[in-house]
């Protein structure tokens, strides 16, 4: 959702910039070619062209601008082409013209909450992707032996209750640092 909003804001800014720039250049060209004008109307193009005419390809400012272009372009491509995580985990009750799913984020929160219900777990975080459900738990101050097995069993039965169409693999990790 945040990504979609960021994309939308960025798209509006870029589109507005292109629109304004396109119209300004058109006005300048029409002013000179059609109306015989010899000075700038709105766009200070003389200053820009003079600056570019004095800027060598191997100069520091040119390299800084070009590196900036590469970084911004690369970041844009990376973020736009990154595969997004699923929004919905399909349930087995889907069929025909009905698609049923559980919201991924709510599953993450509920899995984490269910994990903290296990005795000996003081905190837990869950991450759900299309292939894997990872649960990272922090053991409490007591003896943590057998905690991973207990947690795995609890998570497995919780996920079975969810009735997912293709349940992702479950991975449980217990951090025992605090229990020592």
């Amino acid at each position, binding site marked *: 959702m945040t990504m979609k909003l960021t994309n939308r804001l*960025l798209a509006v800014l870029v*589109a*507005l910039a292109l629109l304004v720039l396109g*119209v300004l250049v058109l006005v300048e060209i029409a002013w*000179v070619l059609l109306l015989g004008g010899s000075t700038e109307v709105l766009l200070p193009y003389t200053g820009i062209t003079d600056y570019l005419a004095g800027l060598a*390809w191997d100069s520091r400012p040119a390299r800084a*601008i*070009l590196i900036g*272009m590469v970084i911004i372009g690369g*970041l844009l491509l990376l973020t736009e082409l990154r595969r997004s995580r699923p929004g919905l985990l399909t349930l087995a009750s889907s069929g025909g013209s009905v698609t049923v799913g559980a919201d991924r984020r709510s599953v993450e929160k509920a899995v984490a909450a269910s994990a903290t219900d296990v005795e000996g777990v003081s905190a837990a975080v869950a991450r759900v992707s299309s292939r894997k459900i990872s649960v990272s738990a922090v053991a409490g101050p007591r003896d943590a032996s057998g905690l991973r097995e207990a947690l795995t069993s609890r998570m497995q039965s919780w996920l079975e209750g969810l009735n997912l169409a293709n349940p992702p693999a479950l991975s449980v990790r217990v951090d025992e640092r605090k229990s020592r």
Partner: protein
Amino acid sequence: MTLPALDRTPVATRTNRAGLVLLGLLLLGGGLIGLVVGFGGFGSSNQGRPVLDPVARDFAATHDWFWVAVAAGCLVVAALALLWLRAQLSTDRLRTLNLESDRSRGATTMTASAVERACAEVLQARRGVAQASAVMLGDDYDYRLVLSISLNGRESLRAVDDVVQAEVLPQIRNVLDSQDLPVRIEYLIATRVRRVPM
């Protein structure tokens, strides 16, 4: 099996992605080519040349058709930018439902928001449901219903889903006289049991 998050503005999402990928490619490509020139990749004689070459400047100054071509390019860019901005206003959300499939018999319509409100009320009255909303997407003759249901943790997801599919969906389909209406149901699972207001 997974599904992407529901997108009520698919045209805007696709257009924004395509536009920003194109911008990214232009910036990356232009920047890399410029750096290669600056580091002597196209010959050491070019590396110290100005970014705006005097030869190109003279050519532009003496050929009017060049500026006509630039103006045409600007016009295309401005028109595309305007279309890009317009795409932000597009939505897949349905405003009215056409209940009469035979146009020769006239037109019977119903506002989609009325159906959406009714669906939400019916769902919210069910046990195990904390909150519900409905939205109709598509166009007059090809629409689908999306139900978002937040559970309160008092009933299992399976129990709520059984009731929704066995009782609520047939009711909605009967009202809309569309037995094969495509429906997407999204459940938001409760983290803790929520109190039901008395």
